[in-house]
């Protein structure tokens, strides 16, 4: 079985830090998009027609929620990256321990 250790100790540590930041920030962003925060309007991909709706801003709200689901999916990907980096860190520690 080929060795599962493909990252060095520093790359794995970088991966953990990046994943931690990514998970926290994307989850928070997802929550803020879900509650239709006005400040994030520029990041919602709306077009001119979406504003012609007479029934209120429902279309915009749906777009908001779509973006929030995208954020949650990205957060999930970062969780996977974090798990992978954590495994690499553990493997590196074990290798260091055995060589000693």
């Amino acid at each position, binding site marked *: 079985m080929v060795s599962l250790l493909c990252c060095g100790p520093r790359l794995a540590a970088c991966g953990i830090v990046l994943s931690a930041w990514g998970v926290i920030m994307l989850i928070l962003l997802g929550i803020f998009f879900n509650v239709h925060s006005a*400040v994030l309007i520029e990041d919602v991909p709306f077009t001119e027609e979406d504003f012609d709706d007479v029934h209120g801003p429902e279309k915009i709200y749906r777009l908001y929620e779509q973006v929030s689901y995208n954020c949650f999916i990205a957060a999930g990907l970062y969780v996977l990256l974090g798990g992978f980096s954590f495994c690499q860190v553990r493997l590196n520690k074990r290798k260091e321990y055995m060589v000693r």
Partner: protein
Amino acid sequence: MAFRSEEMCLTQLFLQVEAAYCCVAELGELGLVQFRDLNMNVNSFQRKFVNEVRRCESLERILRFLENEMENETVIIKSEKYPETPLPREMIDLETVLEKLEAELQEANQNQQTLKQNFLELTELKHLLKKTQDFFETETSLPDDFFSEDTSGLLELRSTPAAAAAKLGFTAGVIKRERMVPFERLLWRACRGNVYLRYTEMDTPLEDPVTREEVKKNVFIIFYQGEQLRQKIKKICEGFRATVYPCPESATERREMVDGVNTRIEDLNTVITQTESHRQRLLHEAAVNLWTWGIKVKKIKAIYHILNLCNIDVTQQCVIAEIWFPVVDTGRIKRALKQGMERSGSTIAPILTAVQTKMSPPTFNRTNKFTAGFQNIVDAYGVGNYREMNPAPYTIITFPFLFAVMFGDCGHGAVMLGFALWMVTNEKALLAQKSTNEIWNTFFSGRYLILLMGIFSIYTGFIYNDCFSKSLNIFGSSWHIRPMFSNSTWNEHVLEENEALQLDPAVPGVYSGNPYPFGIDPIWNIAKNKLTFLNSYKMKMSVVMGITQMVFGVILSLFNHIYFRRTINIVLQFIPEIIFILCLFGYLLFMIIFKWCYYNVHVSQYAPSILIHFINMFLFNYNDPTNSPLYTHQKEVQSFLVIFALIAIPWMLLIKPFILRANHLKAQRMLQLPPISEGPAGDTEVEITQPNNSKKAGRENHSSGHGGHDDHEEENYLKSSGPW
């Protein structure tokens, strides 16, 4: 609320020679005393304890050698606690131990090198024998062909050479691969082509014992005829540093030699591994104690260095030292001296006598781990004079706060706070690591500074309503858009025509009248003219805070002048400084706050520009129609302030030098007067000089302990306080 540097006193310390070492050791552990160098004009090589210092340095050399040897092999153990200062007799023990260790290690290294050299030669010989086997097998027919072509025509005349020609000599050896080509060429030229060279590369690279590098070598064999050629070849081989090995001619002998060499190689391998393990064992044992020894040697050397600064009494019984220490620590120092005396086993107590001096004492600011960082920053701008106001306690708040004013983001501030909290809570563990990374050390020694910067940044982040560059709407914005429609200012047509629309707070209802409770209204975050508003706001706020801090600094200088009783400085320096800064920049501050309070939304388009007013104030230009005055009689007030400030400039800069010069001349004349003037002539002379010092010279006070009096004679009276 004034923080000044500590009060210091100069004392003479009389120590018995036997007790001197231990007392200095105890004072060193305490770290509160500064020794004056009493042997300034003595060369370092002529001081009393120069031999001991030399011995310490040779011990350090041995320790460095050991550390070098250990660098790649073992880990040096560092313990938490620093070892105690060793007694002088321990130095002799250390010397014996370290010198023995050094000799053993060098011997082990030497042995290892010799063994490796032998191993190298045997390996080369083994490869050589293997390769020459091939040469001899393919070239057994050589002697027959070699001479038959060239001398076929001369065979009748030269019959004997054929018989002698069968006897071919050969030399076998090993040479570095890089030198093979020039070696071959030189052989060809020197022997005029009468030698036959064959060579192959050695497959395995060998390790050079001295440099421990890998070298690649070639095996060669040279066939020749005659004694002269043999000599030539031998010299050439020596010149190219090729090692020549005696290779037997017959195949059986070669086989026996190969077996012999193999057995010898195996034996040598075992010996080498044993030597290596012996050397490793030596290093391991030394590694356990290396760090402790290093600290001990450093301490001994420091103590002797200090003892070199002291005087030895005429009777050779007593060591005299002059020390500066804070007055409040007298008890601790006396206790340390008593401990030192007991440790050395002497019975005579050290004697402390105070010394009166005009020298300016050293500036000592007591700090703990929290204030040390701030004191370092302040000292970087310049260490204050003795007993001057120490600005460091105020900087604990002002530095981080001004940083926060510039930073102003509560999200990033929280990240910074997290980082600082991690550093502060894991203080002990991180201190024990003793990292040499300079950047990390800078961050770690400023951990309390970063902590405060983070806390203040979160506060200013809430004020600026800025969290990762987005605003938080906690209380609900005070601006409403619907009134713009109900007022008919905006309609469908306006919305379609214009790309950007402006909310007009003059329209009733748009602005609710109650400002956002804490910080900047979140509506500004989605406004296009956010930066125009925020820049003006932040710049004015920074100007207000900067001017306040400058005035605070000038007022602190007043405390210094009062403490040192320098009235001349108060009148000639502090007062014009305050006038200048208040008339100009204090007025600017007033204008900023006035404009903020006075103008409302209905007249805001007619509000004047403060910057233009300020510039025009200096130019005395009041004819600008585009800038209306802020308040009535502004012209008179401003003219008065500018002229008052301009008067303060020569007041501040020009008067004091003349007064100081007059005082200096008077003092010089006073020094020369006493031998000359006995009678009334002297008094009149003194009186004549008086009118020259017309301005406030009478109030001058010489006897404040200012640094400029160092050229006066030092007046030392020994006030004996008796043995304690």
